[in-house]
């Protein structure tokens, strides 16, 4: 690919145009080039869900997405889900209910949970468990994570 290859997309609501080789992975572009390090690199193979971002509102594993294929799309990272002041309902519930331990998996869980509540504002516990089954918490703090997502679903309208 020529040296001037670029990708143009909407990042957290703002137009972005950055140099990008064909083989560049979205996660690497976000973290290494754009310094948005809220999106975490866990397994790097699509198993753990730590790198989840929204592409056109859809939860997406950024470690398995070619950055150039986001051309013209809208990418939202954990930074973009955080309001200018304070926290989102999901983030607030994670804090209030102590749904983090080491915190490494938290951005992925928050992004997945945000997409779930967008699609299904009042999920059952079983629906929450199924929705987050692609996000791994190695501290195994799942009960509080499910509690927090359920609480967020009650707090938002």
């Amino acid at each position: 690919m020529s040296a001037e290859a670029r990708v143009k997309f909407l990042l957290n609501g703002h137009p972005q145009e950055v140099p990008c080789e064909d083989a560049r992975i979205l996660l690497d572009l976000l973290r290494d080039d754009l310094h948005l390090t809220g999106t975490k690199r866990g397994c790097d193979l699509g198993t753990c869900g730590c790198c989840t971002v929204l592409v056109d509102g859809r939860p997406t594993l950024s470690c398995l997405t070619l950055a150039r294929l986001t051309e013209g799309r809208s990418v939202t990272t954990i930074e973009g889900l955080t309001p200018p002041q304070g926290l989102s309902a999901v983030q607030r519930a994670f804090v209030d209910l102590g749904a983090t331990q080491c915190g490494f998996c938290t951005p992925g869980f928050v992004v997945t949970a945000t997409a779930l509540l967008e699609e299904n504002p009042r999920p059952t516990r079983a629906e929450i468990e199924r929705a987050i089954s692609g996000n791994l918490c190695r501290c195994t703090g799942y009960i509080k994570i499910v509690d927090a997502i359920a609480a967020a679903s009650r707090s938002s309208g």
Partner: protein
Amino acid sequence: MHLDPFELHRPTTVDETVRLAGALAGRFDFLAGGTDLLPNYKMHLNLKPHLVALEDVDELRGFSADRLGAMARLADLERDPAFAATWPSVADAVGEVATPLVRASGTVGGNLLLETRCFFFNQSYFWRASLGFCLKADGDRCHVVPQKEVCYATHSGDLAPALMVVDAEVEVAGPAGRRRLPLADLYDAKGDGVRRLTLAPGELLVAVHLPRAARGRRGRYKKLRVRPAYDFPELGVAVAGRWTGDRVEELRIAVGGAEPRPRRFDTLTDALVGRTLDDARLRELAEAIGKSVRPVHNTFLLPDYRRRMVAVYVRRAVAEAREGTAG
């Protein structure tokens, strides 16, 4: 992990894709959802200098009750209750593929054409170099069955058996035009874990067609795996059939996740048409299928266990399909 450089192509029509595939002969991979190919590329497994991304090819997208585009996303199928009611075995299998996040990107075509898997293949370059490479990538021998020059890597898709029991056909496009073939014939009966498909070089999977005649079959797909949240199948059993009372009108059973290709057992099941499938006969059928399936020691669970579980899963899948509601 960074990917080695490749050139990315983004055709927008099937014709353009086929032309590109011809021009890049042998030097490219198709990229569908990327959830299988890109992890393999990160592990330096059979890298190619070109990737042909299929997501802009309109004709490959979307699905209906009769047709699944090759690029139809598994998560979209999963969210369609009408589809699940019509094709229960397929809906079961879709919901069992990997995780919701993988299904958000993963596609029907990608799952059908999933790379075969093996404990000695799905490893990092360093790991494989240390042991010595194998037939499936970079080497010339098999670590599973060293006496033979055959690859035993396992078909690990969930959709194939579930679609085979409803007699699905696939539509492919290639340099010689379009053709349709039974899905079961997509997998090479004379092949192995490397030469696993009957597709000609440069042929592209366009769609899966679901025959109206198979609508209303009761169906079930059951999957054996270590971690129910996301593992590949150690075994997958699909059943679809029609019953009048206890009498079998139609019955199809397919097994995947156990051998280099998914297989249907028509000789055994056709013999039951018109007869009553009581517990003893079901047990007999399950044992016969279990005896003919030959897993090898290339996944997490031991082959003897996987083999014995074939009969158990066949029994359970048939019993549950029969109890299930017709579409």
